[in-house]
């Protein structure tokens, strides 16, 4: 838990999509810094899509929920579409019981489906080194 001032969470760019993921040990300060930095990156990199993987988040409380909701709204105002992917089932159950619906936040079952929704498609290719050989006779 070092470097609180600087950004702890990497944000990668793939074409016009920014890809990032939230870590389990997400404290309020890191969440706020992350939201600010991601919003800036959307503008400077002219991103049209953002994928946030949350598969490592073990809980989402009202603070994180609010951060995700605000982030989605700010991104939309900047012309980018945010997809939050990979929510764990116990987290979804708990969020509903808390009374939080993440209204306005688009979600996907996992990162792959989220990327597909943002226009990225996985082209199946045979793994390297594998040659197809038809047996003759």
């Amino acid at each position, binding site marked *: 838990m070092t470097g609180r001032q600087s950004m702890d969470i990497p944000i990668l760019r793939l074409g016009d999509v920014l890809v990032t993921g939230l870590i389990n040990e997400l*404290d309020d300060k890191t969440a706020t810094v992350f939201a600010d930095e991601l919003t800036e990156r959307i503008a400077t990199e002219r991103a049209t899509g953002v994928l946030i993987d949350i598969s490592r988040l*073990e809980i989402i409380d009202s603070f994180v929920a*609010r951060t995700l909701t605000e982030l989605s709204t700010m991104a939309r105002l900047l012309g980018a579409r945010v997809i939050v992917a990979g929510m764990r089932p116990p987290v979804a159950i*708990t969020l509903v019981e808390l*009374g939080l619906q993440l209204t306005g936040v688009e979600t996907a079952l996992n990162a792959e489906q989220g990327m597909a929704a943002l226009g990225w498609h996985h082209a199946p290719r045979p793994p390297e080194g594998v040659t197809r050989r038809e047996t003759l006779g």
Partner: protein
Amino acid sequence: MKLSGERTMGAPTAPVEGGGGAGAGATYPVRTDEDLITVRHAVRAATVETGFGLVDQTRVVTAASELARNAYIHGGGGTVTIEFPRNAGRRGVRLTVRDEGPGIPDLEAALADGFTTGSGLGHGLGGARRLMHEFEVHTEAGRGTTISVTRWNTQ
């Protein structure tokens, strides 16, 4: 101990009361973001120790996070005590969150969804109540707030 101006609200507590049934509690300070992470870890460990399933673990840790954040944002810092009560063969986890802040002036409003004076979505207190089996608030203007919540292992 009832003083004037004091407000209490909550479900009746389990018959096992008076410390006899509650396992020795560990107390953690909540004054910073980092303390909140420490509390979540400790509460997670307590739920695992009590044999809670993954969904129940998530419920209790989330409730702890809401209540502990309230204590340091609205209450100016406080403590979280974790205990292991037993009742009729069931094991549970009880969290008692104390602060010495200004107290909650309107408890009904604070428990209603959408009520917020701070940084959350206004679901903290009411939400934490829904995530736990027992919920008790004791708040007094100028003297602080104590919230005690329990979830039983129903598996």
